[in-house]
C-alpha cells in the first residue's frame, strides 16, 4: 500500500514510519509540507495519507481542501497537536477521514490507521456493488 506522510518534522515522520513498518507498510513517501505533498502526490497516487496541520508554506488543512477538489476517495488521517473540538470539526468538513492528536501512542496510531483503511475498504466495496445496479437501471 502506498502511503504519503506529510509533516514538517523529520522526527515525527520517523516515528510514524516506524508504526507503519510495524503494520507491514513500507511503501512510504515523505513530504515536508502541503506544497511538497501536492507536488508529489499525483505521481505517487497514495492509498492513504497522514497529514500534519501546522506546517510552513502550506498547512495541512489547505492541502486537504486542495487535494479533495479532485480526489474524493483517498483516505486521509490528520495527525496534529490541534486538539480543540472546533479544529477537529473544521478538519472533518475539509475532507479528513480520521483524526489523531499528538502526543499519541503507537497503539493508538495503529488503531486509527486500521479503522480508516477498513472504513475506506467498506466504502469502496459498497460503491462497487452499487455501480452495476445503477448501470442496469440505466439500461432498463
Amino acid at each position, binding site marked *: 500500500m502506498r502511503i504519503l506522510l506529510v509533516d514538517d*518534522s523529520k522526527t515525527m515522520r520517523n516515528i510514524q514510519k516506524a508504526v507503519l513498518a510495524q503494520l507491514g507498510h513500507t511503501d512510504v513517501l515523505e513530504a515536508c509540507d502541503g506544497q511538497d505533498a501536492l507536488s508529489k502526490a499525483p505521481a505517487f497516487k497514495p492509498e492513504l495519507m497522514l497529514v500534519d496541520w501546522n506546517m510552513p508554506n502550506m498547512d495541512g488543512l489547505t492541502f486537504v481542501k486542495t487535494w479533495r477538489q479532485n480526489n474524493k476517495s483517498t483516505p486521509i488521517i490528520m495527525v496534529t*497537536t*490541534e486538539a480543540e473540538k472546533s479544529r477537529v470539526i473544521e478538519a472533518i468538513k475539509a475532507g479528513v477521514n480520521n483524526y489523531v492528536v499528538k502526543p*499519541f501512542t503507537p497503539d493508538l496510531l495503529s488503531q486509527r490507521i486500521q479503522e480508516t483503511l477498513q472504513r475506506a475498504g467498506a466504502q469502496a466495496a459498497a460503491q462497487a456493488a452499487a455501480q452495476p445496479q445503477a448501470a442496469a437501471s440505466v439500461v432498463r
Partner: protein
Amino acid sequence: MDAMYIKPFIASISNVFSTMMQLPVTVKEPFVKSAEGPSSDVSGIIGMSGDVMGSVVLSFSNATAENIVALFCGQKYDAGSPDFADAVGEIVNMVSGGAKALFKDRKVSISCPSVVLGTNHKLAKQTDVPTVVIPCATDCGTVNIEISIKDTRAAAIPAAAASAQA
C-alpha cells in the same frame, strides 16, 4: 499571570512526556523569571496569537535535552545535529498545542517552532509581560517551561467598556 494559563502547561508536559517517552514529570514551584536568568543551552520556542498572545519556551541544559531527545527519537543525537533541533521543536510544539487546547473559551493559533542552541544563552522577550517559569524535574534532568503570554480578550473587555461609557 492567571493560573488558568499555568495549569494547562503542567498537564500538557506531563501528558507529552509520559505518552511519548514514558518519562514521569515532577513539577516544582513556578516563579517569575528575573532579568538575570536562568539561562539555558537549548531553547525550543513557539509563538501564540489570537485571544492569547506571546511565547512559550522549553529550556534545557545540553545534557538534559540530549537525554530527552534520545528517548523521544529512540536514538541519540548530539546537539549539533539538525535532527536534534527538529526533535526539540516537535516536543515544544506538542506541549504548546496540548496546553492551548485546555485554555477555556480562548481561540489560539500557534506558530511553527524555532530552536535556539548555544551554551548559557538568554532570550530577550517582551518587557510588558512577565515570564513565569515552571521547573519540571525528570529522570533526564530539569526542563523549564517559560511562559510569557497575555490574554488579549481580557485586555479588550475593559477598553470596550470604557469606550461604551464615554
